[in-house]
Structures are given as C-alpha cells and as structure tokens.
C-alpha cells in the first residue's frame, strides 16, 4: 500500500466515525460539530482526488457558513433531547435494511470496472483545477450559472418572506430621526400669566 492509499484510508476512517457521531451523539451541538469534522475530512478526500477548488469550497461554504446556520438552528429550536431521542433505536432494523441495500447497490455499481470508462490520466503538477472549472462555468455553462444566481435570489426572497417580522411596540430609536430633530420639535415655550395664590387653591 502506498502512502496515498494510507492517507485515503485514514481520512475515510475519520469520516465514517464522524458520520456515526452525527447520528448517535446525544447533544445536538456535538452532532453539528461532528458534521463539521465529516465535512472537513470529506474535503481532504476531495483533495486526494485532485478536486482542489471543490475541496476549498466545501470548507469555506459548508464548514464556514452552513454549519454556523445549523448551530443557530439547533440553539433556536430549544430541542428537548430526551423526547427527541425516544424510540431512536426502534428505527434500527429499518435503517439497517436500507443501509445494507444501499451498500449492496454501491458494491454492484462500483465493482463494474469504473463503469466501463477509461481511467482519468494523471495530471501534471501545474494543472489547475480552478482554472479548468473557470474556463467552463462562465462560457459553456453560462445558462446553468445564471440559473444558479436565480436560485440564490429565490432563497433570499424566501428567507426574508418567511422570517422577517416587525414586532409591534418595540422601543428602539431610529438614529436618523434622532439626528434630524430640531429644538422646535421638542420644546415649546409658552408664556403663562402669573396666577394668584387663591386661584390656585380654588382649582385644587
């Protein structure tokens, strides 16, 4: 076994353990952190496949941003862990069945000599994955690229339409309004005639 396969098996083992921790951890925050580890080792595996750009993107976007969102959601929901985990192991037989089926499937599919395609030729050391992607995305795949922007736009609209709400009766102050205020808006000078003492007592 050469060094590359050794590294591959090391990362794969970490990935599997991290994946197991995601589903079995008692604390959802621990699950989320295990998922970070899984993403990270996944990125390392992609590095081994010479997909550098995707690996970096995985770390930047998933570990950097998506997981933060996951943690927010976990903290927002205030999950009752005991209740959530009740009956967790009841699903084991079904889950095991699905897992075994998936495994058999993967084996049948992957055992078939790389789908009958020629293996990719090794790339020279100065080969840049990012560059190759860039040459394709913005020219040949411009249609898919612009569609990606539209999907992001829909996500923005959906996120705002579903979560933004104005709370009535909030007491925050608008700084712009504060700066614009003039003396005349706040203080009004009124000239009152001096009143006599008896008159005040009668009023009282």
């Amino acid at each position, binding site marked *: 076994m050469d*060094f*590359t396969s050794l*590294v591959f098996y090391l990362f794969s083992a970490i990935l599997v353990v991290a994946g197991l921790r995601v589903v079995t951890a008692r604390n959802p925050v621990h699950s989320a952190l295990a998922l970070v580890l899984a993403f990270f080792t996944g990125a390392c595996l992609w*590095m*081994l496949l*010479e997909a550098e*750009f995707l690996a970096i*993107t995985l770390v*930047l*976007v998933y570990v*950097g*941003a*998506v997981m*933060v*969102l996951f943690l*927010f*959601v976990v*903290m*927002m*929901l*205030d999950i009752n862990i005991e209740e959530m985990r009740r009956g967790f192991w009841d699903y084991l037989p079904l889950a095991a069945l699905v897992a075994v089926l998936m495994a058999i499937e993967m084996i049948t599919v992957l055992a078939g000599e790389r789908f009958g395609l020629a293996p990719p030729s*090794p790339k020279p*050391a100065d080969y*840049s994955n*990012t*560059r190759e*992607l*860039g*040459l394709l*995305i*913005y*020219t040949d795949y*411009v249609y898919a*690229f*612009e569609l*990606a*922007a*539209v999907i*992001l*736009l829909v*996500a*923005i*609209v959906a*996120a*705002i339409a579903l*979560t*933004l709400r*104005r*709370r009535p009766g*909030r007491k*925050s102050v608008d700084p712009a309004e504060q700066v614009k205020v003039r003396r005349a808006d706040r203080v009004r000078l009124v000239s009152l005639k001096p009143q006599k003492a008896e008159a005040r007592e009668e009023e009282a």
Partner: protein
Amino acid sequence: MLENYFPVLLFILVGLAIGVIPMLAGWLLAPSRPDSEKLSPYECGFEAFEDARMKFDVRYYLVAILFILFDLEIAFLFPWAVVLGEIGLFGFVSMVIFLAILVVGFAYEWMKGALEWE
C-alpha cells in the same frame, strides 16, 4: 501529487502545536486543587437562575442565511478571477449578469429592512 501539499501539512502541524502547547503547559504547570464549590456554576455570585442554553432569536438565522447566500456568490468569483484574462468579454458579462441578479436580491432585502437590527 501529495508532495505538493507538504507546506500545507507543515502549516497545519505548526498551527496545531501553537494551539495545543499552551493548553498542555497550563495543565502541567498550573496548580490544580478543585473542590465542589469551585467547580459549581455561578452567576455573579448567585445561584444559577436558568439554563445557560437559551433560545436564539430567529433574526440571527436570517442574517446567517443571507451571509451564506452571499458567501456562495463569492465562491463563484474565485475561478472567474483566475481565468478572467482568457474568457474575454463574454465571461466578464456573464459574471456581471450573475452579480446583477444578486444585487436585485440585495436591494430587495435592504429596502425591506432585513439588514436592520431593531
């Protein structure tokens, strides 16, 4: 191919060492005499009132998701920057349109007040 990553490995090792060594040093060198009072949680001298894990406002979520969307947008800028010289005006314009679509989203969220923190 893996040799190319030797500097990265070195970087990771040094980074790990810098993080781990002070913790180890603290653990080894500092005196440690715990008792139950020292280890119990406290809140400014009072007994703890409630669980420290409180609910987050949904507003954080909105900010986070908007961040992710623009983070993804930036991920598309890297390969573009690498090949800008080769893809010509067409590649440039396709990125301009991409950004224009997202600017619509940005204008929308700004006008809606989603960026304000009441």
